[in-house]
């Protein structure tokens, strides 16, 4: 290669990433999937790919996951109205793509900004999955979990779990979990078990991290309860409630850090003695 040509190439090469960055900045690194809206329904899309439905499903699915999950976990400006159509198209193209139902349901059900905050749609997706894949106990398990966690309906959740136990290969603990739900109407321990299952069953990635995060919230709630217990102890000893949580430490009652697992200090209401996860914390969830 002549020297002139080599110099020219060396000068041009860095222009590539530079201009790419400029384009991304101006036109959006991830241009939205507007064209999908245009493609009406799964059935119509399916007609476009005769013989390649499975591949098309994979591609749609890849797009969906990348757009809604992962690095864009907490990104603003996600278009959640596209999510259900995308999931619907994917699962129409390939009804046996189990992961699409599971992930799709999570993205739909989890509150903003990770998900769309539309648990009813998430449950619908899982229900469709259980219809298309009647042999999958995992989908029924997820459906049950979702009924409990997002729709706050432990009875229905227990009923679905019992259905799941009928499926060969189902995990043995589904039955005891159903029993717990029926008996206690569900409690934190039950939630913990459900999220632990989701953590263990998920591959590394968004689902798993979300389950882990959920477990950390439960841990933080436990920690808050523990602190509330210490507050009561303080009151018993001193005859008054502490003005701030830091007094617990000063009194030697607490060696435990006064922050939740996200590092945000707990909230404390002196009047009621309640210790709670602060509104400022990323761990805060509405009741």
């Amino acid at each position, binding site marked *: 290669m002549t020297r002139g040509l080599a110099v020219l190439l060396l000068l*041009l090469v860095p222009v590539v990433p530079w201009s790419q960055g400029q384009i991304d900045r101006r036109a959006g690194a991830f241009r939205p999937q507007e064209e999908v809206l245009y493609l009406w329904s799964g059935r119509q899309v399916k007609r476009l790919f005769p013989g390649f439905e499975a591949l098309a499903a994979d591609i749609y699915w890849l797009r969906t996951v990348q757009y809604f999950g992962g690095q864009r976990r907490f990104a603003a400006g996600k278009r959640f109205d596209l999510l259900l159509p995308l999931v619907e198209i994917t699962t129409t193209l390939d009804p046996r793509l189990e992961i699409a139902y599971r992930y799709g349901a999570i993205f739909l059900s989890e509150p903003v900004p990770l998900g769309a905050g539309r648990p009813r749609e998430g449950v619908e997706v899982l229900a469709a999955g259980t219809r298309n894949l009647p042999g999958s106990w995992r989908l029924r398990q997820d459906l049950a979990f979702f009924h409990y966690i997002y729709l706050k309906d432990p009875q229905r959740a227990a009923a679905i779990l019992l259905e799941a136990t009928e499926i060969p290969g189902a995990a043995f603990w589904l039955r005891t979990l159903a029993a717990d739900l029926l008996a206690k109407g569900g409690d934190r321990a039950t939630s913990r078990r459900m999220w632990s299952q989701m953590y263990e069953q998920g591959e590394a990635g968004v689902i798993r991290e979300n389950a882990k995060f959920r477990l950390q919230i439960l841990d933080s709630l436990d920690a808050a309860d523990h602190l509330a217990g210490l507050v009561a102890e303080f009151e018993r000893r001193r005859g008054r409630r502490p003005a701030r949580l830091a007094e617990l430490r000063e009194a030697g009652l607490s060696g435990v850090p006064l922050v939740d697992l996200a590092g945000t200090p707990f909230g404390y209401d002196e009047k009621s003695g309640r210790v709670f996860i602060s509104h400022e914390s990323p761990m805060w969830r509405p009741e």
Partner: protein
Amino acid sequence: MSRLLAVAANTFRETVRERVLYNLVFFAILMTLSGLLLGQLSIRQDEKILKDIGLAAMDLFGVLIAVFMGTGLVSKEIERRSLYPLLAKPLTRGEFFLGKFAGLAFTLLVNLAVMTAGLYLTLLATGRRPDPGLLAAIYPILLGLLLVVAFAMLFSTVTSSAMAAVLTVGVAVAGRFTDVVRNMREVAPGTPPWLSEALYSLLPNFRNFDFKDRVAYGDAVGGDVLVWVTAYAVAWIGVVLGLGLASFRSRDFQ
């Protein structure tokens, strides 16, 4: 320079005589049919459908021409040895190579221009306003096609015309999935970030040339974006053509 232009002019003549531009006939038929059929469909969507079909056809036909003419330009000349009498003349290898590129670039320009006119005519004929915003999508399509040609020519210098065509199509397709590559960590979380970034940089990002959806919805495309897209295209084309030229220059014609 005049020799380079002579090669370019002859290349254009070649594409005309080899009936490459006949694809325009198919395009015209496609446009006409779409225009007629869509008149029956729902009121709001058909203009967008027409624009989408027109732009997509430009892109698709353009890529096909770019791949098959681009690989034919160099590898067929080598395989058939038609360049032997030419290279013995005062024509340098660089003039030959770049002249071929220039000729095919001009062919693509003419092709797109005719298609654009056809699309606008169809829009007019079906009673719609011809939207000048479409040009903001057509210009990047042209840039993308030039990059495909550059790749076709590069691969032609090192392998047979059939293999070069396969490789060029591969690059053209993979280049539309660069966002998948960049975000591959979503679906394969074990991938080290440097690997996905490296792969992303090595593939040309053809989505940079894709403004079809935006334009069909009537969204404006900033002039500054187009400037940077041009810079991106020029840089990539320069690198690929440069490599192709170096390869062509060093080649022994056994």
